[in-house]
């Protein structure tokens, strides 16, 4: 019996350690609870079925959470190292601005394929560069991540507004490359599919690679990590680069979904992403957390939003309810730890 239990624990801990398997079960229970609640209070459609369970509604939820979901994957890594990235919303704005500009103003004579590839490359490179800047300031100058990314949150927002002259750049209303781009990158299957793929990649990265192990070790005890000879600067730099990259990719999806590059996009996304990570059980102080938890946190937030919208709850009330959920989620985890 005990042997069996231990074997189970070993298997279940493929994420991290055996204590986490227990956490994982509770997390799934929380998600199941929210889903059940959503089904119960969902309004009925004309044929008597639950609107919440309508496949169209379910995939809408997934699509709606995808942008925050993607950003929060890398945010999990950042927070696991004991850091924070406040600049993701601004990086998203920079990426959407740049990609809309690229589609409408740059390289007019290139083929559609080359044009789209160049656009993706530009937006991705710029976002990676922004992340590199964060990582360099934090790792080399030893500046607190909160301050470093607060600065780039302000500065990059300014950059996005400056290059666009603070104007939205509409795309995709003609028969041009921009329309082709938008029609590809707004597809539900592509958006949800890339979220799922990235989630899988980051789950593997955290659980099964040396890099992921180092991320957790540094967040757990940076001094001990230094004494163990871990490449702290490199690991820290990489997590901020990853964070920039994913925020940039989210910006590309944003451009297609909204048919515009918007330098004011993504305001507050950093807080939504942090909320998803924290609801998913990752400690803000670092060292402990999981990608699975972050996905659950993202889904809980998304389902709640959907549920309240289906019930026509005022969006301001929706924010107040979300606030309560965040505090409750973290309070419950605190209790679990004390127990």
């Amino acid at each position, binding site marked *: 019996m005990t042997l069996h239990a*231990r074997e189970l*624990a*070993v298997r279940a*801990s*493929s994420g*991290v*350690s*055996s*204590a986490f398997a227990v956490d994982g079960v509770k997390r799934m229970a929380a998600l199941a609870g929210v889903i059940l609640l959503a089904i119960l209070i969902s309004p009925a459609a004309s044929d008597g079925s639950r609107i919440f369970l309508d496949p169209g509604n379910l995939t809408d939820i997934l699509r709606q959470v995808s942008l925050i979901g993607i950003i929060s994957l890398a945010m999990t890594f950042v927070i696991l190292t004991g850091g924070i990235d406040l600049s993701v919303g601004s990086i998203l704005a920079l990426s959407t601005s740049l990609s809309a500009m690229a589609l409408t103003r740059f390289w007019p004579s290139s083929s559609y394929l080359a044009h789209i590839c160049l656009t993706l490359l530009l937006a991705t490179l710029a976002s990676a560069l922004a992340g590199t800047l964060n990582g360099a300031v934090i790792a080399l100058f030893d500046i607190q991540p909160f301050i470093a990314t607060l600065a780039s949150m302000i500065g990059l927002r300014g950059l996005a507004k400056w290059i666009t002259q603070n104007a939205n750049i509409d795309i995709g209303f003609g028969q041009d490359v921009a329309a082709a781009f938008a029609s590809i990158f707004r597809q539900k299957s592509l958006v949800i599919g890339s979220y799922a793929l990235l989630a899988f990649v980051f789950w*593997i990265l955290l659980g*099964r*690679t*040396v890099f992921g*192990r*180092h991320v*957790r*070790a540094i967040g*757990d*005890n940076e*001094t*001990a*990590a*230094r*004494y*163990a*000879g*871990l*490449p702290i600067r490199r690991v820290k730099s990489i997590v901020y680069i990853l964070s920039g990259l994913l925020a940039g990719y989210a910006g590309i999806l944003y451009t297609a979904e909204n048919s515009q590059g918007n330098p004011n996009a993504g305001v507050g996304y950093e807080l939504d992403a942090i909320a998803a990570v924290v609801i998913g059980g990752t400690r803000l102080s670092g*060292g*402990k957390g999981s990608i699975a938890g972050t996905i659950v946190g993202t889904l809980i937030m998304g389902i709640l939003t959907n549920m309240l919208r289906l019930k026509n709850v005022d969006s301001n009330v929706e924010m107040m309810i979300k606030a309560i959920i965040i505090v409750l989620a973290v309070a419950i985890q605190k209790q679990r730890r004390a127990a």
Partner: protein
Amino acid sequence: MADLLRAEKVARSYGGVYALKGVNFALRAGEVHALMGENGAGKSTLIKILAGSVKPDRGSILVDEKPVSINTPLDSQRFGLGIIYQELDFFPNLTVGENIVIRNLHFPQSSFVNYRRIDSFCRPFLDQVGFNGDSRGLVGALPIGQLQLVALARALSMNARMILMDEPTSALAADGVRRLLSLICALRDRGISIVYVSHKMEEVFAVCDRATVLRDGETIGTRQVQNTTTAELIRMMVGRDVENRQQTESSRAGDVLLSVNALTTGKLKNVSFDLHQGEVLGVAGLVGSGRSALGAALFGLDPVKSGDIRLRGNSIKPRSPASAIAQGIGLVPEDRKLQGLMMQMSVLENSTISTIGRMCRFGFISRNHENEMAEPLFRQLKLKSASPLSQVSTLSGGNQQKALLARWLLIDPDVLFLDDPARGIDIVAKQDIYRIIARLAEAGKGLILVSSELPELLNCCHRIIVLNQGRVSLTVDSSEASQELIMAAAISAQAGGEQQ
């Protein structure tokens, strides 16, 4: 003469380990009383009990022959006790005056800060101790010698009749020491009793009237300073028996593995020694003598100012722990919780964290491989854990230390510096760790073992160097060493003739 302060059979244990087993200590009016003992003898615990920050399990404290209970630092202030800690407890961003009046029962408290009132309250006490600086200056900007004076003024302003000073001269230069000692004499002449905790014999003989020696949490005895000798006090401090002292073969036969030549850092001066293959070299010395600084220099934590480190004849320059490890040097740190372990991670992950790159297949960590590498070591170390996946924080101190040792066995450096690896762990785990050290030496590694416990050094090491104020004050074969010899070299005034 009646005692001003008396501690009777005071005992205190931490998690089953006795820090004090039953200490008797008496302080008379108008005397300077030295409190002496090795690291870990119980001096600090006794001071904490008198300061009201730790409660005794048993025993009683009497002030003016009346039993009292000191539950908070304010209580200790009420009974006229002033404590001057080794690590001075100031608020660095408050002014000298603010630091003196805060939590001061003799300063009429009000809700608003009135600097003029603070100044006029503090000035007489600052003058008494000879502090000429501005009472509105920030404490954080003062040098350590001035801080001592402020601490004394604060104690006086609290109307202290008894002042406890914990190694007050450990960070002072020679003239600072002289001034402090004459101030102590002046305070005694004004009727204030002083408990003077120090290792430094010449200071004890210069100002103290009596000396009490603690060892292993017990009072060994109290002597009139004028009727005793340095040799007697040292004997009282180290008198523990060396049990089953092993015949450690001098293994000079091995080649020189690590050669340190005139190494100088911020805390080390001109340190030279050789470490041979298969040798365990002990490092003795008081806390702050440079024994941990030696590890920090070898492991790339402290910058090396001059001198060189050679491994197998090749000069190496460790710039960081990572580079030290790459060059074949390892360090098991003094504080396993702060510097060693990732407490939220599992036992297995803690031991493989530095070598996990070797346990990958196709770029991904292979859990089977990881287990296969670590499990034999856990068995060898007799590491007891419910499962390798248990969080390391759930383990006992000894098993935590073993998890850390497993990490170093996997890294497999040529030279391993162990900074007090057996501190605060149970006796069985200690033996396991000594066994591993011996086995590593047999395998031709070079080991440097720092310890506060002299019997441990005499048992485990082939040779011992003694550090004193950053210098090597003695190098000796452990077969020729005695606790008295080592202790004398550790506390002697100057680092004496450097033997090599």
